[in-house]
């Protein structure tokens, strides 16, 4: 972010950089920086709150009046409540013969489709695994969790990207099952801690680590602090 700010200023454009991590924006010192103490993924702060977003932009554009390089802090903070989990149901068992995570993913498909409409497709599955193929992608990680070497389990792409599609599928479905913008990370905690698929991904991550998979292959299956 700050590298781009330096480069763009040198090309003759004035820049204002928003930053979510205080030490980063201070150490990289963009020409004009506004540190906003908001959760990662939400640089404008509050989804669905135009007034709040305008306050951020007003503070950002005010930096254009500064006569020299400046990094300041935005006056309002949004802190993640690390205990907040989205109150979101999971579908009842439909096919007792299939793994619970696979059955769950299939059961969430109608909600996922509604979530795609709500989000205009901005964050759903499809980087490497289409929504139709999420259950089979989960089956690959189930095999890893049950002991199959990760390289032989049939993971349909880079594990981190496949994992991202699975998580996005679930969080997009969750959007359709609640009537508000979730608090930051609340639906990720729901996915990891309260769904069968989340249990599979955590178990597969541990199994890959135990199999001495290269660190990036297992580490990026979930947020880094898990």
């Amino acid at each position, binding site marked *: *972010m700050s*590298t*781009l*700010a*330096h*480069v*763009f200023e040198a*090309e*003759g*454009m*004035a*820049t204002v*950089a*928003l930053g*979510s991590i*205080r*030490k*980063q924006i201070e150490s990289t010192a*963009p*020409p004009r920086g506004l540190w906003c103490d908001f*959760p*990662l*993924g*939400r*640089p*404008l*702060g*509050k*989804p669905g709150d*135009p007034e709040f*977003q*305008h306050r951020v*932009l007003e503070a950002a554009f005010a930096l254009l009046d500064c006569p*020299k*390089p400046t990094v300041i802090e935005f006056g309002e903070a949004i802190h*993640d409540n*690390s205990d907040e989990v989205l109150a979101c149901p999971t579908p009842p068992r439909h096919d007792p013969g299939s793994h619970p995570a696979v059955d769950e993913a299939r059961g969430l498909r109608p909600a996922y489709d509604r*979530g795609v409409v*709500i*989000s*205009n*497709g*901005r*964050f759903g599955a499809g980087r490497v695994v289409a929504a139709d193929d999420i259950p089979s992608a989960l089956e690959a990680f189930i095999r890893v969790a049950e002991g199959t070497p990760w390289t032989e389990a049939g993971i349909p792409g*880079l594990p*981190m990207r496949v994992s*991202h599609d699975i*998580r*996005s599928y679930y*969080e*997009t479905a969750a*959007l359709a099952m609640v009537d508000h*913008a*979730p608090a930051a*990370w609340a639906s990720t905690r729901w996915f990891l801690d309260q769904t069968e698929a989340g249990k599979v991904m955590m178990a597969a991550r541990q199994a890959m680590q135990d199999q001495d998979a290269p660190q990036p292959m297992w580490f*990026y299956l979930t*947020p*880094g*602090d*898990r």
Partner: protein
Amino acid sequence: MADSDIKALTEALPGESFETTAFTTPPPLAEATVAIVTTASLHHPDQDDFEVMDTGYRVLDDSQRDYVTGHWSPNFDGTGFAYDMNTVFPAERLDELAERGVIGRVAGQHLAYAGNQFDLSAVRMDSGPAGAKFLRGQGVDIVLLTPV
């Protein structure tokens, strides 16, 4: 899991250091053309997704706001952007500022990069200057940079 813990994992990653800080004085905001440059790996559905360690950029058409995120890092909340594009890419807020005369106009094209880079030298030396020249060629005066 906590946002603060995830930030702590990345806050010490070194950035590029610049001996001097370039500093451009813009025209008055009310007369300026404003573009957004985001590191959220946004792209149009028919554009190439961002590969891991992709240091290139995508041109985002302002009149076709069907942006999707190709960011591969798991270390950000995606539901804010899913629920409201403006949480990451405040194009509609810029529209409103232009309608009020606070800014001159919204640029016809914006840019997206992938922010999850461990080696920024290619961005500094290649794709960054190329993207800057592109926007300057479109008459952009001011760039709002947004992360994810």
